[in-house]
């Protein structure tokens, strides 16, 4: 499944509807669906915030495979910003040293099993790939093992 979304925080509602359709279609378990929704929101809002004047839509593609759910998020005509290199460590910091910025990308790294960033400098395009392994509670994985 693939869809393009306008670059706006308000477009998150459409993004969640798109994810919900995918989750229902493939009967993805709640552990995985929660993680995927959170990771997609964090990446999407990051792209909206840091490329706010970019007129291009953001592309999201979802793949259901035997052992994984994979999300590919692409953005066009953007500067390179490797999200995997910009995640501060938050756990353990005292309250007075906590700042909101960066928490979202940090959580993406914690909740997803794989996070990859690829940038094409010729096309000025980035693709962020998020992978989550389906657990034992996933309906189809369980059926496949029976």
């Amino acid at each position, binding site marked *: 499944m693939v869809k393009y979304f306008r670059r706006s925080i308000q477009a998150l*509602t459409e993004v*969640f509807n798109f994810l919900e359709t995918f989750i229902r279609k493939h009967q993805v378990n709640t552990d995985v669906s929660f993680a995927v929704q959170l990771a997609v929101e*964090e990446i999407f809002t990051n792209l909206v915030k840091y490329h706010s004047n970019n007129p291009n839509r953001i592309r999201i593609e979802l793949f259901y495979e035997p052992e994984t759910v994979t999300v590919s998020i692409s953005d066009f005509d953007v500067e390179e910003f490797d999200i995997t290199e910009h995640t501060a460590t938050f*756990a353990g910091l005292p309250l*007075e040293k906590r700042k909101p910025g960066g*928490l*979202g990308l940090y959580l993406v790294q*914690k*909740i997803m099993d794989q996070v990859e960033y690829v940038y094409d400098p010729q096309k000025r395009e980035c693709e962020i790939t998020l992978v989550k392994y389906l657990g034992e509670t996933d309906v189809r994985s369980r059926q496949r093992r029976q």
Partner: protein
Amino acid sequence: MFEVVNEDNKGIRLRGRFDATQVNKAARIFNALQNSATVYFDDLEYISSAGLSVLLKTQKRLKANGQQLILKNMSKHIREIFKYAGFDMIFKIE
């Protein structure tokens, strides 16, 4: 859908999905808090870093005056996010 209700003496109740589109709605309630308050998560299905940031800012402001938020009845998934973020060390979670 997201709702945040300040139930006078009973605390603040969160319902639905607390994502980045709901920050302003939540901030209006949390920014008005001056004293310690209990936040009930019973009916909250989802929270992202945008929601966590509203709670973090409120906790910082209240703690500076010796007050705090107390968080109650989180789902397994939301509790996990709080733990990953290290928020279990800065909030009282019951």
